[in-house]
């Protein structure tokens, strides 16, 4: 694993861990090993991507961190707000699909986590509107999901994940189903949000380019059972913008990440 020096200034916030996995494995009832053993430490405020071929268990790893799936062995630690009442409150999760309730408005969808936590209605509405504003959807608060475009639905989903003000944002290939232009825009918006809010983001993707563009750290995973193949740091001048996407440094990082990914697809074909 490649570890490099931490840039000054953000050092203090990086000392604590947001999430850590130790010897985590997941096997199905059939005995097939899906994941691990996996060791991963994510620092607070870090933007980290899990990159790997489909079926390598990266989504499973995310679900294990979220507590949606129990690991077969190993330990998972996730730091929480102090005085945490509701379990899972400190985690925001964005699924591959927008996963919105079609029977109610964008605002009500965003308000859901607060409603479930018993936050008073007026306060919850205000916070939902605030979250919608942070993803640029103020004018669409009363729209129903079917009236929104794919990118807008994803923004609503993002606003819902942010509304509880979680420490960690888990994103499971959130932009995979969107067209490239929409994806680029949402990439930039996500980076801006991350800089502004300082959340820890664990981002699962199967796109080399997306992982390098977004994250400070790219964790490349092997094919099933998913293990860590390489742990690469992407260091460039922040804030990143469109000029990074077209820079030589970006192409160089993409090449290195692709090289790390190569063993998992250049080997024996499973078909």
């Amino acid at each position, binding site marked *: 694993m490649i570890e490099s020096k931490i840039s000054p200034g953000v050092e203090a916030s990086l000392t604590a861990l947001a999430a850590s996995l130790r010897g985590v494995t997941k096997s199905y009832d059939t005995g097939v090993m899906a994941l691990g053993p996996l060791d991963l430490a994510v620092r607070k405020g870090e933007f980290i991507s899990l990159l790997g071929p489909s079926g390598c268990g990266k989504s499973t790893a995310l679900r294990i961190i979220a507590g949606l799936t129990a690991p077969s062995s190993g330990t998972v630690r996730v730091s929480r707000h102090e005085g945490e009442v509701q379990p899972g409150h400190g985690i925001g999760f964005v699924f591959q699909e927008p996963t919105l*309730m079609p029977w109610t408005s964008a605002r009500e969808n965003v308000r859901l986590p607060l409603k479930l936590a018993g936050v008073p209605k007026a306060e919850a509405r205000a916070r939902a509107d605030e979250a919608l504003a942070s993803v640029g959807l103020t004018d669409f608060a009363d729209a129903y999901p079917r009236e929104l475009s794919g990118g807008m639905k994803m923004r609503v989903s993002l606003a819902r994940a942010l509304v509880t003000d979680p420490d960690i944002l888990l994103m499971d290939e959130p932009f995979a189903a969107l067209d490239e232009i929409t994806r680029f825009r949402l990439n930039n918006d996500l980076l801006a949000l991350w800089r502004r809010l300082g959340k820890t983001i664990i981002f699962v993707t199967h796109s080399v380019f997306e992982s390098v563009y977004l994250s400070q750290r790219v964790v490349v995973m092997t094919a099933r059972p998913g293990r860590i193949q390489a742990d690469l740091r992407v260091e460039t001048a922040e804030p990143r913008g469109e000029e990074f996407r077209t820079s030589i440094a970006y192409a160089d990082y993409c090449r290195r990440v692709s090289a790390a990914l190569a063993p998992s697809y250049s080997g024996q074909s499973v078909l």
Partner: protein
Amino acid sequence: MSGQPVIAAGPSGAQRAVRFVLPVMVFAAGLVAWELVVRVKEIPPYVLPAPSAIFLTLINDWAVLSQSLAATLLTTLEGFVAASIGGIALALLFNRSKWVEYSLFPYAVILQVTPVIAIAPLLLIYLEQQTAVVVCAFIVAFFPVLSNTTLGLNSVDRNLAGLFQLYGASPQQALRFLKLPAALPYILGGLRIAGGLSLIGAVVAEIAAGTAGAGSGLAYRIAESGYRLNIPRMFAALLLLSLAGIVIYGLLALVSHLVLRRWHESALGKEN
């Protein structure tokens, strides 16, 4: 938002008019032919009454017929309400506990597949007549509500269920905010079927009870008029039953449309 129909009033409006006018014209032509045949061939009303005679009977016997209509509608409504509440409650219970579902579901099926016309005479022996008629309507109508609600409760999006789990939703919260809304289109579909079926159940029970003589519903009127060879009144009562069925279906379809129009595919226009 963006997909508003621009030319909606044009061809689709005309098409809708045609779809409405054509069956009405067929109906009118049928009535005229019927009336002509009866008049030309001088068929006596106790064999086949002319439409005009049926219409006259409807007006002249309105006092009797309207009472019968009210009685049948009341039975239907009671059966429908019982079937709706019973079907939904049982489906919720099944959803709560697999053991209850495994234990009771076969009996719900047995109740459904046994012809109600064969159960009605037995019910009339053990129950008071009005109760027996309502129970018949319930037996016929509750199964579609039960099976549709069960289907709906099991059709919840897996990711949404995961989301509720992530945010620590209690079982009551998951039921109220996730399962019931997700099942709503299915429940409404079940209710739409149940509406027509409770009318059928009520009619079947009234006919079975007919010989007992205490009934006063429309089906009882039909049976009674048959014995008296009052054929025009049979037709008039039949007409009312048919109209009642159409109105019940239309009302439930309207409710379903109004409830689902903002989000469910079934209630959306094709242009979206």
